[in-house]
């Protein structure tokens, strides 16, 4: 048992290490011994050195459901890029920017990070801050007419799926 804990200490995240190794080899696009060694070293050292910064292990209930989520997201990025392109070409005086307080229902930190990133990735909205009690997400929107509709949209399209997948 003690040996196991020792191993945990020196090699905290085996799966992540393996992932980093594969990533490194893909980036280098080779399978040479030298790159294998470098990749293995990075795979060990990065998780070890960043250990203190890691949140609790996220638990994925239905990991496969992330695929349609990302597909949705990609489509939304495409769609709203066109919208934002049009907004940028409008005279800036016609834009109606706003800060929006979004009431979050997610509690898991990893899920919250995913939601904030999603909001920033979809054009027209940037997440700008989370209240210390993690209940309100401050969002800056480039052009918004109906704030309620935007909040509802984020809730049904992103937050609900994330809650089901991650919590």
């Amino acid at each position, binding site marked *: 048992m003690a040996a196991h804990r020792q191993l945990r200490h020196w090699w905290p995240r085996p799966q992540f290490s393996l992932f980093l190794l594969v990533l490194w080899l*893909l980036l280098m696009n080779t399978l040479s011994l030298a790159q294998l060694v470098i990749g293995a070293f990075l795979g060990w050292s990065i998780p070890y050195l960043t250990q203190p910064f890691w949140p609790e292990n996220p638990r994925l209930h239905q990991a496969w459901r992330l695929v349609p989520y990302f597909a949705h997201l990609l489509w939304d990025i495409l769609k709203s*890029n066109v919208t934002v392109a049009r907004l*940028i070409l409008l005279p800036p005086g016609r834009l109606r920017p706003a*800060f929006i307080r979004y009431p979050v229902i997610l509690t898991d930190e990893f899920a919250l990070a995913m939601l904030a990133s999603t909001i920033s*990735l979809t054009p027209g909205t940037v997440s*700008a801050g989370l209240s210390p009690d993690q209940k309100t997400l401050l969002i800056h929107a480039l052009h918004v007419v109906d704030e309620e509709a935007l909040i509802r949209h984020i809730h049904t399209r992103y937050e609900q799926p994330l809650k089901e997948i991650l919590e």
Partner: protein
Amino acid sequence: MNIPLWLDALIAALLLIGAIVATLGSVGLARMPDFYMRLHGPTKACTLGVGCTMLGSLLYFSVAGQGISVQEVLITVFLFVTAPVSAHVMARAALHRRVACSANTRHPPWPEMDHPPAPPSLANPGEARQGPSSIPGEGSDTRTRGS
């Protein structure tokens, strides 16, 4: 190298769209009136513009070059992961420093900064970018973390 014409056209179109979107992002950066609105252009140009360019590159090198290379996909994934984080950090930093937002912004996080003063004077360039030095009665506002 023999690439079928339709594929050539597709790659060219992807590169062109990528370039146009990236340009629009930069135009947005230049034209928008305040910091928070400027933030929107580049983060978006990153997602779609770079995505299109990378897809074009991926197609080209997969067909013409040395087999499928996944580096482009990885670069795109990295950008998608890092772009929102940097945008978020910049927005936070701006909020923390109370960088003024334009006058027509609704619900600014604190009432004192919703109307930026006239263009910054040369005598005191820092003045226009910050709100008043004393900010009373903001204890209830959860967004502003104490400095």
